[in-house]
C-alpha cells in the first residue's frame, strides 16, 4: 500500500555518485547539508540555525521519533504494517510514568515504558498474525485502545495523587552529562564565530552535551538494529518473513514466531519512545496527549529512510532539527530555512541539468524561484505555520524522494501457514 509505483533506478543512478559505497554517499549528503546550513546561517544572520542549543533541542525532540521509527522498522521488516505505534507509545508514556513514580528511578521508568509498549505490540501480533486482521485496522484500534486504557488508568491511579486525571505526579529524571573535554573545546570554537568552523562546532557541540543514558541508548540502538537485522541469521530470517514468508516457511523458518518477536520488539521500542517523552527534562511525567502524533511521525521517518536504520535516523534527525529550530528561534529562523531551501533547489537543478534531465531540472528551478520569492517578499513565517514546519518538510521530501523507496515485498499481506501457493 505504500509505494504503488516504484521505478527501478535508472542506469544514470549507478554511475558516479551512485557507485560510491553507502557510507560515503551519506557523508557527502551530510557535508552538503552542513555547508548549506552554514551558508544560510551566515548570509541571513540567523546564528540559531547552527547553534549547539538548537542541536541539543533537536536531539531531545528526535529521540521519541527515533525510537518509534526503530519500532516501525522491526515491525515492517517482518512484514507487518504498524500504524499502532502511536497507541503503543501512549501506553509507554503511562507505563514509564507509573513505574518511574512507583520505584522512584528513571531506569524503572524506562523499563515500565518498554513493557507497556511491548504489551501493545503483543496485542497487534495477536490480531494481525494469529487472526489475520488487516494491519491498519488493528493499528487504528490499538491507538484507540491505548488512549482509552491510559486515560482510564490515570484517572484510577494518578488522580488520587496528583489531583489531575490528565497528569501524573512528577517523576525522577536522568542526570545529564557531557563528553569532556570535547564539549568545552567545541563550545570555545562555536563562540569564536568563524564561518563554517563555528557552525560545525555548534552542530557537533549539541551532540556531546546534555546527554542522558536514554539518548545514548537511542543512538546505540540504530547500529545495533542494523547488525541484528542485516548481519545475523536471526535478522535474515526475520527480514525474509517480510519479503517472502512462504519461501521462508519452506526453509523451516517459523514465520509466526518471528513476526511475534518482531512485533513485541517493535512495541517495546515504541514504548521506549513514550518513556523518552515522560523523561523529557521539560515535562517530567505523564501528560494526556503528550505523544502528539509522534508515533505516526516515527513511521513517516522510517518510510523516509527507506526501511533502513541509517535512513530512519536521517529522517528523525531532519524532523527533530526543524522542530528544534522552530521551537528555539521561531518564525524568523524557519524563514531563513526557506532561503536554504531555495539554495538547495538551485543546486539540485544544476545537478539534474548536468545529467541532461532538463524537465526535472526546470521543475527544481521553478520551485527554487517560488521559494525564494516567498522568502524575499515576507519577513517571517507566521508562528502557526512555523510550528508545523517539520511536517511540511517531511511531506516535501517524501514527494521528491518516495519513488526511489522500496518497502519489504510482502508488507501488509496476510500469511497463513501451509496455505502458500
Amino acid at each position: 500500500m505504500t509505494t504503488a509505483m516504484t521505478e527501478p533506478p535508472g542506469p544514470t543512478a549507478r554511475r558516479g555518485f551512485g557507485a560510491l559505497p553507502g557510507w560515503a554517499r551519506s557523508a557527502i549528503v551530510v557535508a552538503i547539508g552542513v555547508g548549506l546550513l552554514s551558508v544560510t546561517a551566515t548570509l541571513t544572520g540567523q546564528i540559531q540555525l547552527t547553534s549547539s542549543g538548537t542541536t541539543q533541542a533537536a536531539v531531545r525532540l528526535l529521540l521519541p521519533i527515533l525510537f518509534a521509527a526503530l519500532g516501525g522498522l522491526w515491525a515492517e521488516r517482518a512484514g507487518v504494517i504498524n500504524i499502532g505505534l502511536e497507541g503503543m507509545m501512549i501506553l509507554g508514556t503511562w507505563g514509564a510514568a507509573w513505574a518511574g513514580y512507583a520505584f522512584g528511578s528513571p531506569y524503572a521508568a524506562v523499563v515500565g515504558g518498554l513493557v507497556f509498549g511491548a504489551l501493545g505490540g503483543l496485542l497487534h501480533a495477536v490480531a494481525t498474525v494469529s487472526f489475520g486482521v488487516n494491519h491498519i485496522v488493528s493499528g487504528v484500534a490499538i491507538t484507540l485502545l491505548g488512549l482509552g486504557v491510559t486515560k482510564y488508568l490515570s484517572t484510577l491511579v494518578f488522580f488520587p495523587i496528583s489531583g489531575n486525571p490528565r497528569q501524573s505526579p512528577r517523576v525522577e529524571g536522568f542526570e545529564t552529562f557531557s563528553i569532556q573535554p570535547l564539549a568545552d573545546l567545541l563550545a570555545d570554537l562555536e563562540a569564536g564565530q568563524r564561518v563554517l568552523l563555528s557552525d560545525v562546532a555548534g552542530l557537533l557541540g549539541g551532540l556531546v552535551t546534555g546527554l542522558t543514558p536514554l539518548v545514548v541508548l537511542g543512538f546505540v540502538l540504530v547500529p545495533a538494529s542494523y547488525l541484528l537485522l542485516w548481519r545475523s541469521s536471526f535478522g535474515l530470517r526475520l527480514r525474509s518473513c517480510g519479503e517472502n514468508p512462504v519461501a521462508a516457511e519452506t526453509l523451516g523458518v517459523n514465520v509466526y514466531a518471528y513476526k511475534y518477536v518482531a512485533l513485541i520488539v517493535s512495541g517495546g521500542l515504541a514504548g521506549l519512545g513514550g518513556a523518552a517523552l515522560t523523561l523529557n527534562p521539560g515535562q517530567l511525567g505523564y501528560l494526556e496527549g503528550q505523544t502528539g502524533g509522534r508515533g505516526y511521525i516515527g513511521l513517516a521517518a522510517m518510510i523516509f529512510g527507506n526501511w533502513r536504520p541509517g535512513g530512519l535516523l536521517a529522517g528523525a534527525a531532519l524532523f527533530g532539527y526543524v522542530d528544534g529550530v522552530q521551537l528555539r528561534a521561531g518564525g524568523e529562523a524557519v524563514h531563513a530555512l526557506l532561503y536554504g531551501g531555495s539554495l538547495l533547489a538551485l543546486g539540485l537543478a544544476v545537478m539534474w541539468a548536468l545529467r541532461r534531465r532538463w524537465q526535472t531540472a526546470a521543475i527544481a528551478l521553478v520551485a527554487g524561484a517560488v521559494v525564494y520569492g516567498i522568502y524575499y517578499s515576507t519577513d517571517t513565517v507566521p508562528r502557526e505555520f512555523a510550528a508545523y514546519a517539520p511536517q511540511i518538510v517531511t511531506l516535501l521530501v517524501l514527494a521528491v524522494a518516495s519513488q526511489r523507496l522500496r518497502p519489504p515485498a510482502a508488507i501488509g499481506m496476510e500469511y497463513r501457514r501451509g496455505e502458500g501457493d
Partner: protein
Amino acid sequence: MSRIRTALLPPALAILFAALLCAVALMISGASPLTALGAMIRQVGEGTTAVDIVNSASIYYIVALAAAIGFQMKLFNIGIEGQYRLAACVAAIVGGLLVLPPVLHTLVIILTGVLVGAFWAGIPALLKAYRGVSEVISTIMLNAVSIGVIAYLIRDEVFGDLQGNNISTTPIPPSGQFPGIPTGAGTIFGMVFVSVLLGVGYWFVLNRTRFGFELRASGESPTAATAGGVDAKRMVIIALVLSGAVAGLAGLPEVLGRDFAYTLTSPQGYGFTGLAIALLGRNNPLGIAFGALLWAFLDTSALALDNVGVPRDIVLIMQGSVVLSVVVAYEIVRRYELAAEQRRVAAQLRGAPAAEKEAVA
C-alpha cells in the same frame, strides 16, 4: 439466511465480548458493572440525551461514509480529521462574511465545505497517484498542518473575532443557518437529513452505477480492474477526493445547527472515529448507521457514568475493544464459513466421480 448470519453474528459477539471486557475492568476498579449498565440505559430517556445521540450519530455517519469510500479502494484516508476541520473552519468564515438570501446562503456554506474537504484530500491524492507517496503518511502530516492553517485563519487579525477569552470566526447570520426540528427535548440538526441522503446516495452510487462498480473492482483486484480498462491513477484520485468532499460536510452539522461559528475549541477527533465506525459497519450504509448510533450512545454514556461514580474513560476502552473484537470476530466467522464451504464442496466432489463413471458406462 446464512448471509444475514454472517453479517450480524460477528458484531453481536464482539459487542458482547467488549462488554464482558469492560465489566472485568470495572470490577477490578471496584465498581459494579450492573450499576454502570443501568446508568447507561437509563440516560437515553433523560433530558436531551436521545436527541444528542441522533445529532452526534449524524456527524459520525458522515465521517464514516467518507472513510468507507476510501476503504472501497483499499485507501486509508486518515486525513478525514484535517479535512473536516479545515472545511468547517473555511465554511464558517465564508458563511460569516457573505450576505445572501436564506436558502442560497446555506447552500453556499455547504458547497464551500465540500470543496475545501475535496481540495485538502486532493493533495495526498495527487501525491499518491503521481509520486507514490503513501496516503497514510501524507494525510497524517496534513492533519497536523491543517491545525496550523486553522489557527492562522481564525487569528484575530486574519478572519477571527475575539470574544472574551475565546477566539472564533464571525458568527453566521440566521440566513445561513440550517434550521433544525425542535422536539420537546432538544433540537434535531437539519443536517441529520443531509446525512441520511448521503447514505442513500452512497448506496446508490456504489451498487447501481458503473463508477461504483469500477471503484469496488479496483479495490478488490487492481490488476483485474486495469485489465478491464479502469485507470488506476484516476480511481485513486477520484476516491480520495470524493472521500474528502464527504468529510468536508462532517463539521457542518455543529457549525450550521448549534455553534454558528468555528472556534478554537470546536470539537475534534471525529476522523479516527469515522475510520473505526466504517470498520464496524463493514462499509455498508446500514451497518455504518448502526455503528454511528452505538458510538454516539457510548459517548453520551460517559456523562451518565460519571454521575454514578464510574470513571467515564471506561467508554473509550469499550469503543476500542469493540472495534478490535469486531474485526477479529469477522475474521473468525469468515474462516469458519470458508472451512464449511470447503467441506461441502469436498463432499460433493466425492459423490460426483462415482456419478460420472456411471454415465460413461
